[in-house]
């Protein structure tokens, strides 16, 4: 999967979790600047991503991440390290 596909899938998770389906979110938008976002919402996004891609993100990513781009890069790395058999 290309990095942009990860971005698209993650963007859908972000929109669904934040209930912002009609809003276009750029990959480099700081998630913490979006309306109604607090650290709890970021954790929920991370949990959905981990479930969707069957990965476990490092705490440094979980608690420090700001953009969809960053999340997609991290997920991409993990999926490449552990390709589906």
């Amino acid at each position, binding site marked *: 999967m290309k990095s942009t596909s990860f971005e698209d899938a993650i963007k859908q998770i972000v929109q669904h979790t934040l209930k912002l389906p009609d809003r276009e979110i750029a990959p480099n938008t700081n998630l913490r600047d979006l309306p109604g976002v607090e*650290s709890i919402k970021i954790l*929920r996004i991370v949990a959905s991503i981990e479930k969707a891609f069957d990965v476990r993100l490092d705490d440094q990513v979980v608690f420090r991440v700001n953009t969809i781009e960053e999340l997609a890069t991290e997920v991409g790395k993990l999926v490449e390290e552990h390709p589906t058999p």
Partner: protein
Amino acid sequence: MTAQPQTEPARPGGGWSHGVTNAHYDQDPRIFQLFLDSSMKYSPGLFPNGNESLEAAQHKKMHFIAGQLGVKAGSRVLDIGCGWGSFVCFLAKEYGCDVVGVTPAPRQAEHIRARAAGLGVAERVRIVVGHLHEVSLPGGAFDGVSFIGSITHFPDKPGALATAWSLLKPTGTTYLSETCFCNAAKRREFASRPGTKFVLQDTFGWAELIPVSEYIRYFEDAGFSLQGLTDLTAPFHRTIEIWSENAERNGAALDAIEPGLSDRLLKYFEISNAAWGYTSKQYAVVASKRR
């Protein structure tokens, strides 16, 4: 009474923390009936099949705890922080145990006594109102002691476990389940975050999360032998999902009792469920007085 100004202690141990902790549980029981199961058990159920109703999950959980304690008919059990008496009444009714429940909340005590009478087990249930360190209980008398999500509200956790040890028979067992920080580093980083404070202080008045390793040490220090540890994080996540659904469905009724209550409950549930596995865990620890 003197007119000296009272300074509030920064840490619990003084009266205020008990007062406010008490207040959460001493609220109108109707509030809790609007999101808990019919037994009013305010702790995780067990969902071995994944599709249990909340009632069934709580029933399975109480059988699980009874099994962990190894109780049988006639066993004497002490439930410390007994809530609305789901486990106290369950043990008396289903296992024929003689049960003492301790709660600092007078409203909970009234509720349990009425419930035990309704179930025909009033003679096997005794409810003591007060804090563990204030009430008088017989030493060396109990086969089992349980702390089901209650020790988080005890400022002196090592003292509570030492008391449990002294109240048990030489072959007795203690079951403790609690929400914990994942580890010491998470505790240092998250203990004073707004989300943590909202749940522990604004919702419960006073509670303190510690890593499970601390509880293990307190058990050892009190003289217990450790018997087992169970991860209850996933079932608590599922339990809180159902509580949220109930609170959402009964939002108007909750807000009629207290304006804004449903939003506050839903926020507490959302924070709790977002944190599982990232900053917090739910564990059950079983320990015995046996050598």
